[in-house]
């Protein structure tokens, strides 16, 4: 099982990296000069640099990573995102509001400007199913992911409010 997990990690590494980046691209909108002219009050936003890490030195219960378990049906098994560990670092991620006029939508949105580069350090997790929310139940690992190195995150992500 461990060997299978390792093979899965190797196989899914590039795929998962792509999955993480692609949705970002899917909602991104490169800002041209015209778009930038619609952005006013720049000091309303901010540029963020730094890193976010999970369980760099283990957790408060054990040395492993964070575990998130969800029960999909009453009395049924648990879907588990297990052993989340590692660091995601970035420079120059921007957050602000701006007006957008596109198609039927004409209003303000939250714009998240992606950092040009971001870095994963020993970032990994495991997808599994289990008979219990806590470790100790019978758990079947579906695949594991490990990521390291730099990725390019170009463009903007717009979060559009629709009540």
């Amino acid at each position: 099982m461990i060997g299978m997990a390792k093979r899965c990690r190797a196989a899914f590494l590039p795929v998962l990296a792509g999955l993480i980046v692609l949705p970002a691209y899917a909602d991104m909108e490169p800002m041209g000069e015209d778009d930038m002219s619609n952005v006013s009050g720049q000091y309303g936003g901010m540029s963020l640099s730094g890193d976010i890490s999970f369980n760099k030195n283990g957790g408060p219960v054990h040395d492993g990573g964070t575990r998130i378990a969800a029960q999909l049906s009453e009395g049924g098994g648990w879907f588990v995102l297990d052993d989340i560990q590692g660091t995601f670092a970035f420079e120059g991620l921007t957050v602000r509001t701006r007006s957008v006029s596109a198609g039927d939508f004409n209003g303000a949105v939250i714009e998240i400007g992606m950092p040009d580069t971001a870095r994963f350090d020993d970032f990994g997790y495991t997808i599994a199913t289990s008979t219990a929310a806590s470790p100790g139940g019978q758990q079947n690992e579906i695949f594991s992911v490990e990521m390291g190195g730099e990725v390019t995150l170009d463009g903007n992500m717009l979060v559009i409010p629709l009540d």
Partner: protein
Amino acid sequence: MSLMQKIWSQTLIGMTVLGISLGSVAMERLGDEEMSGISGQAGVTMEMETKASIDTFSYFTDGNGIHLDDISVGSASTAGEADFRTYALDIRNDGSLDIGYDIQDQRIAVGGMRLDDSNGDSVGSFWMDRDMAGNFVIQGGNEHSDDGYTFDSEFELTNGRFGYQTNGHQVFLDDVNLDVRSVGQTLHQENGVVFYSVPVDGSLDIGAIRYAAQQEGFRGDASSLASYGSIEMDFDFQSDFEIQAGGRFGSEGFRVDNETTLNTANFLYRTRTNGKDYDVAFKDMSGYSQVTDLRIDVAPDFTAEARQGLGFTLTGSESQASGNLAIGSIELGESGSIGSFNMEWLYENQDVNGETFSNQLFLMAGGHPDAGSEGMRLAIEWSLADAQLDYTTNENTVIFDGIQSWGRGDVTVNVTGDETLNGTQFYEGLRMGFEDVSGGYRMDGLRVGKGKSEAESAEVQGGVELLGALGMYRSFEFGSLDGHYTFGPGGSDGEGITINSHIVIQDGRIGALTEEFGQGIWADDLEFEAHIRDMTVDVTAEGLSLIQGEAWSTMDIGNLRVGDADNGASFGRIVWQRYGQDNEMVISAPDSGREGLQIALTHVFSEASGDRQNQFIWETGRNTDASGVPENGTGMQLVMSNIHTDDYGVKTDLEIDVRDANDGTDNLGFSVNSRTRLKELNIGSVDLVHRPDASDGGGAATALHGVSIQNMDMESNLTATPIP
């Protein structure tokens, strides 16, 4: 001797001998050189025992009166007995009058204070106990006018108590020692304006702040009563007053202008916890204050009811109060310094949201109507037109810039006990109540730089949003705020403060990422209700510790908008219901030994109990009424119910600092590092609820029958800089 000097001489001597405490304002201990100037003078020594009472002392402006009732002077230790005083009057070689005095075992009490329209209500009673010894020297003429006066003064007040009582409950400062030197006071008048200049150098020690449940001012040994803690301070300041006739209303009253320079001061709040003393210390303070066109009247207040009060108004076109205060360092417990602070402020009239706000306060009789007939009511309007707060750590500065605040409403003050009166639950301690207070604050944002001067020229940026976990926002407005904070004596283990509160906010609005044209992210149509029970405040070795016994709250955001605050598109409604026990916050300097602010939070999410639970609701697609206002409960809801943790809770350590942004530039940024740990956080269920309150709605589907997050240790190191 001029006519003015004759009048003032007779008045001052008479007031001093009568024991009215004008002399206590400023006394000077005589040094050897000054003593050498006294020789061969015939003096007068008087010994007095005094027990006196005045039924009512009234002050009127334009026919409106404020009345002090049941004023008495007598013994502090024994009711009904007299105090003991010795006065030594002498004339020095230079013609100055030297009044030495020694007052022992004196209590001065005021039984009540009321306005003409108080209808039987009273502000409550006050008293002061003291032993006091000092000298007061009066000399004709000063540097400004030959017709004026120069006063040199020194006194030492010991064994002092200052108390305030309402409805059978009292709070008093115990074991007060005040040491004051004031040499070179001057008093003169020009063109109907009285100029009074007073330099003061002194210290104040308050051994304890205590609570007692009794009507009469406490006498005797109070050491068995619980204490809020003790205070020590020293100060050196110069204050200049210009006082003239003419209030804001009618032809009578006072106008006061003042400039005060605080040369140095230190302040220390101490609690004795687990048998050891720990301090919150404000060190190396200095500052400046200017008040222009302050008027004092007895007059109707600014509300439609025109209630009579003792008014202090800064409402004229030239009225303002401005100043600055620098605090060299703030030290918490044994954790070290969190850094230095500098505040600058300007209070003056301003227009906000189409309304004009001013600065005024009217003192009236009657606190919370259910607490009894005694209490204080303050009708307040404030208008902070511009302010900034600088915070410097390790020589790097962040400025919270362009701060404005405004509001108006009633604040009530009572001393209350643990009891239910007329359906209202009161708690032991000093109660500060809020009735229909509306107002808010907002700020431009942050400026960050190497030191204050570089920060002041830096670009305004966001970053306050990183402090949302502490309840600090870029802007916050509220249509009404009601409720109370009651500050009781005693901390978690010894001296300290115990807080009970109930706060209701309606028609609120919180802003994030806001910009100069009013665009941003807005938590709009906000209603908030919060209850805190037995929250203790102590100073410990680690720092300032706040522990909530039990707390529950509901924040209902009617619309989470983007763009314009009134009409921006909405994400829908969000409700965040909280319930916890033994939540804790410790504020300290960082463990690293660097300056900075470290805040350790522990939130214990308790399991649902009755109508109290931790629950998150997101509702979209609501029906609207005829006015287009969304009706809550008529849309689709995503409901996360019974969110709870084990006793470990969710522990979050925040470290706030100014440091290199590490973004590939040399920029400094506003840095918030956080570390969040939890052993187990569970969500009972995640449900999709279909229009629960709509006539055609009903029904729910459970999407997830449970979610569990375990063994999490998440760190984030984020630094905010301006967008390039």
